[in-house]
């Protein structure tokens, strides 16, 4: 496709990462300035002061939300890149493996048990659900001490189907308005005002990314074949488990805070891989930065497309990501046949 250097140098890594980081920063500023309500940064910082409407809109409703979008998008992007390498499938999606389903079910159960929609108990319960899902899928996929990508995928998909059924069951049992809460989990929402939440999420996401980066070279070798990786010195079993757990924790945390937002973890790593190459030392940080930027823009669209009412952000990512995904699939099929 595009012409790129034959291999990754430290220079290229720093330059590309810096460029993407700038793009992310620009997107943060852009997304904060965009919204269904006009708000002036000038006024907010100037005469109005901290009690002006502009200040409240920009810094109490938009900025935390935009930052959460960056963190969640980054988590999903990096996790997606890692899982695509782990499963040796460039079109794998992080929500496929049941982690998101586990988080959503646990979160909804917490809501039904009486927790408030905005209580921190809900994301906490969701995160526990994600961990539970990770444990179940890891154990279920292990046979003879080996965890193959094939097994992970099969067990994950089945678990996902079960979680989806559980969510639908909850949907029918709850009242109409409780059902709206379930919608939050299925379609996602980045609405938040808490800088504390965003900070915690960011710290967590960066830690997860760092853990994945430790295995970046392993991911390169694994992506090129399991036996090849083995005889190149990779502890395949340990690397696989570590990557699966790290990526799943990233996904679990993201879903706990914002519901299941699809297509970010699928499209962003795939597209960046086409542009930048499959070397994970670059692809992981790039997918993190790119995922954050993409989700922020999707959320901006979600906030502004329909006038006063807002769309769930998962709808926008699906509408932009879906057709693109079909195009990629079509291209792959054509290449495979022709």
């Amino acid at each position, binding site marked *: 496709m595009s012409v790129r250097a034959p291999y990754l140098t430290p220079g290229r890594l720093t330059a590309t990462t810096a460029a993407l980081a700038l793009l992310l920063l620009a997107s943060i500023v852009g997304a904060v300035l965009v919204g269904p309500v006009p708000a002036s940064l000038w006024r907010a910082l100037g005469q109005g002061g901290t009690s002006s409407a502009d200040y409240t809109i920009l810094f109490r409703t938009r900025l935390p939300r935009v930052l959460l979008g960056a963190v969640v998008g980054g988590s999903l992007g990096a996790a997606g890149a890692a899982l695509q390498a782990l499963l040796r499938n460039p079109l794998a999606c992080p929500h496929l493996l049941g982690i998101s389903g586990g988080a959503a079910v646990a979160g909804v159960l917490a809501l039904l048990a009486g927790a408030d929609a*905005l209580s921190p108990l809900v994301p906490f319960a969701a995160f526990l659900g994600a961990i539970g899902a990770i444990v179940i899928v890891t154990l279920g996929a292990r046979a003879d001490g080996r965890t193959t990508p094939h097994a992970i995928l099969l067990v994950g998909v089945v678990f996902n189907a079960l979680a989806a059924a559980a969510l639908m069951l909850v949907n029918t049992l709850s009242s109409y308005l409780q059902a709206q809460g379930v919608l939050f989990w299925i379609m996602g929402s980045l609405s938040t005002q808490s800088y504390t939440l965003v900070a915690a999420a960011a710290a967590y996401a960066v830690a997860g990314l760092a853990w994945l980066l430790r295995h970046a070279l392993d991911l390169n070798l694994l992506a090129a074949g399991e036996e090849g990786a083995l005889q190149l010195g990779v502890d395949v079993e340990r690397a696989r488990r570590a990557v699966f757990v790290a990526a799943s924790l990233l996904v679990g945390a993201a879903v706990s805070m914002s519901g299941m937002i699809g297509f970010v973890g699928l499209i962003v790593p795939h597209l960046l891989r086409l542009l930048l190459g499959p070397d994970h030392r670059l692809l992981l940080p790039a997918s993190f930065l790119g995922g954050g930027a993409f989700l922020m823009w999707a959320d901006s669209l979600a906030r502004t497309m329909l*006038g006063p009412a807002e769309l769930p952000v998962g709808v926008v990512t699906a509408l932009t990501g879906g057709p693109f995904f079909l195009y990629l699939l079509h291209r792959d099929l054509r290449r495979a046949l022709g």
Partner: protein
Amino acid sequence: MRRALAVLLLAGCSASSPGPGSSGPPARVVSLAPSITEIVYALGEGGRLVGVCAQCDHPPEVARIPRVGGYLTPSVEVVLATRPDLVIAVPSPGNREAVRALERVGVRMLVVHDRTLADLWTSIAQVADALGVPGAGERLVGYVAGRLDAVRTRVAGLAPRRVLVVVGHNPLIAVGGDNLQDELVTLAGGVNVAADAGATWPTLSLELVVARAPEVIVDAAMGSEATGEALFQALPNVPAVRAGRVVRLAGDTLLRAGPRVPDAAAALAAAIHPEAFQPAPTGITPRAG
């Protein structure tokens, strides 16, 4: 098709064709919505109910009536097992298939609408006609309309206040325009700031709440008061928050298009114009500034 056959077997040997409803008023009535149950009781015909939906909780006598499934998911088999002469339903997101199934089996079905106040008058009349008590229907309409007028009068002359009615915290779901709840807000002396955001329960972004600057926020969402508090406290320059006019409205009277709408209207009016309602009626927890 299979399901309908199984249902017929369950229903036993009673005639699968429409019951004796075609001749004479129905004796066995099933209500598939809480608002309909309240209308039937308000018409004085509660004795005819042989099945109600799970969410029906008013008046207290309804507790002894068997349940036939939820408002969203009624059970066709259980409804048929009560051998109804008439089933009354409101279109809900989940019951379309059940209603169709009941119609196919030949049960007499009455579907009434509940979106606007006009729908409410029509539905009272339709239910009363179907039950054979049109006079009671007219009286009920008059009674409810009269009580609504009383509320309207009480706040007449007061300058309307900008109101946001919230029914969900996360996502933030509000009462939109062109529906019964919106009409009640207007009647109660308010201006719904989210009226242009679409007819059914729009999700609002927080910045919109800031921009629309409501003077009163009515928090009718489920969940604790603390959540609503936390949500709105972060928006200190919204007039409602500054003035301490975030009012909690417990229960779901607001959402029920039945004979108790005047109670909901009164609660709204007391929230929007507290100075006209001293002391505050029950069911309202105004927040101190």
